[in-house]
């Protein structure tokens, strides 16, 4: 379960396209698609390369879970049931150090709502959901 009190995240449901990603999460690893044609990383996974359109050049590559906080806001009145008992809760955008054009969402476990150090370095952690599927999260480096 999440380390954020009251939070019940909807659990990701892997499909044929995304199973390698979610399987890697369960091994506490971060893998992203990479296009061998244009060498661009891609996240979230897609059937084709968003850059060059190649459909058969996408492979999986393990990357380091290092990033920085770009911006954030605070969810105070969520429509999503599993978040209503956790609000206020941070909603941050994390850029990946290996390619800042790739970004991730984060609720920043361990950082009080509204006290987010924009620009700070973060590292990837993993949190469990109700099905046991791990999801990738980010924590401020201290």
């Amino acid at each position: 379960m999440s380390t954020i009190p009251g939070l019940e995240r909807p659990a990701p449901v892997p499909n044929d396209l995304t199973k390698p990603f979610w399987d890697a999460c369960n091994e506490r690893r971060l893998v992203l698609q990479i296009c061998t044609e244009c060498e661009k990383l891609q996240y979230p996974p897609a059937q084709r390369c968003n850059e060059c359109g190649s459909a058969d050049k996408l492979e999986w590559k393990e990357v380091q879970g290092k990033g920085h906080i770009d911006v954030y806001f605070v969810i105070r009145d969520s429509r999503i049931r599993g978040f209503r008992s956790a609000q206020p809760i941070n909603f941050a955008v994390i850029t990946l150090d290996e390619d800042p054009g790739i970004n991730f969402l984060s609720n920043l476990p361990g950082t009080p709502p509204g006290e987010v150090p924009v620009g700070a370095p973060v590292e990837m952690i993993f949190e469990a959901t109700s099905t046991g599927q791990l999801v990738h999260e980010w924590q401020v480096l201290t």
Partner: protein
Amino acid sequence: MVSDTSWMRDREGLGVWEHRGKVAVVGWGQSHMDRRWDGVTMDRSCGGLAKEACLKAIADAGLSLDDIDGLITSADTRAEQTWAPRPYFAPPYDTEDGLIKASAEWINRELGFKNAKYFKSDASYIGPMMGLAAQAVGDGLCETALVWYPMVNLEGRYGHNNPQNSNEEAPGSSAFTLPWGYQSGAMFNNLVIFQQYCKKYGKSHEGLAPLCLNLRRNGLMTPWGYYAMHEPHQLTTDDYLNGRMIEEPLVIFDCDRPVNTCGAFIFTTAERAKDLRQKPVYVLNHAQNTGKGRSTMSTLEEHQEAVSSLARKMWEGSGLGAADVDIFNPYDGYLTFTQQFLEGFQWHGVKFGEAHDFYADDIRVEGPHPFLSSGGNNGTGRNRSVLYSDSIQQLRGTAGPRQVTVRADTALAGCNTPDSNGFIMFSKHPS
């Protein structure tokens, strides 16, 4: 079902629109507006309001039912699934059609058009729908199209009863957003971009206050709008800044209020428009964006480029430039993204990072920069039609107390967000 998009003008390099000045809007009708349907009054249901708006638009044009040969609408009524399961009513309200949407086939049956031959009910939302209508008339798929756009608000707190928001699992692409509380692109991605904007240009949420207040002011001069009818008082800066937080810093007054209503328009050929009741409002071009950013969240720079590209498409197809646009009514469904349109189109010379300064200047309809003279959806309730009806009224010279004092020969209006939208250029003159 995926809508056909081959008619769209969604890329640069297409040149002047082939039907520039050969299509005109000649009628407009707006139904009654309520906060939500009461569930029992059938002429205030989606279907009832759609019929009301359609008949008003036809009458406004001075046409009869027999003159209509095209019926165009959208099923994007934002009804969500907040009401089902529930019992149906006596015909014609015995299916979803008529209750949460009003399809071309339903309206055809209800109003009895004898000559309708072109039916289209799958426009994705009003922005592309207006372009689709102009293109259909220009292409000769129909001569006179009735186009309507219902917005539906049913019982229950908006969004909270949607089954998707109670799901314990996140399937498909939502697996990469929902587990972190992401709700919608219009709200969440654009708030992310607003925060990037404030960070880059040293701005803050307070900079939106003058826009919000002026939209309410304009909305109170729109007699059929929600606030003019139901809550006829002006907001103050304190009201705005102390508004209930939704997603901090976004407050309730940044969000357009869901309502139950319908707007309708009549498109026809410029030739047919010559001898009709209203002064024709000609269409000079339409353009769309259907893009998406590279990663989970689109970025400020991606949206800035998206709107800049939209502007280039609009200038290319219409033969106009930023300085030629008199009336500008872009979507304000969340106030956080409206500035992207203002800056991307460079209306009144506003450049990237300057929107908040522009808002703090004189944007009243009596003043030199009557931005969103319609009052937008923030000032009239989320009907979306007002962006177009005000543009038409301003060019006709019938906007009443909202009539601008500057030149009103051309108008640019569109919906929805910077990366996904449809815009249309109107003019008093065909060329």
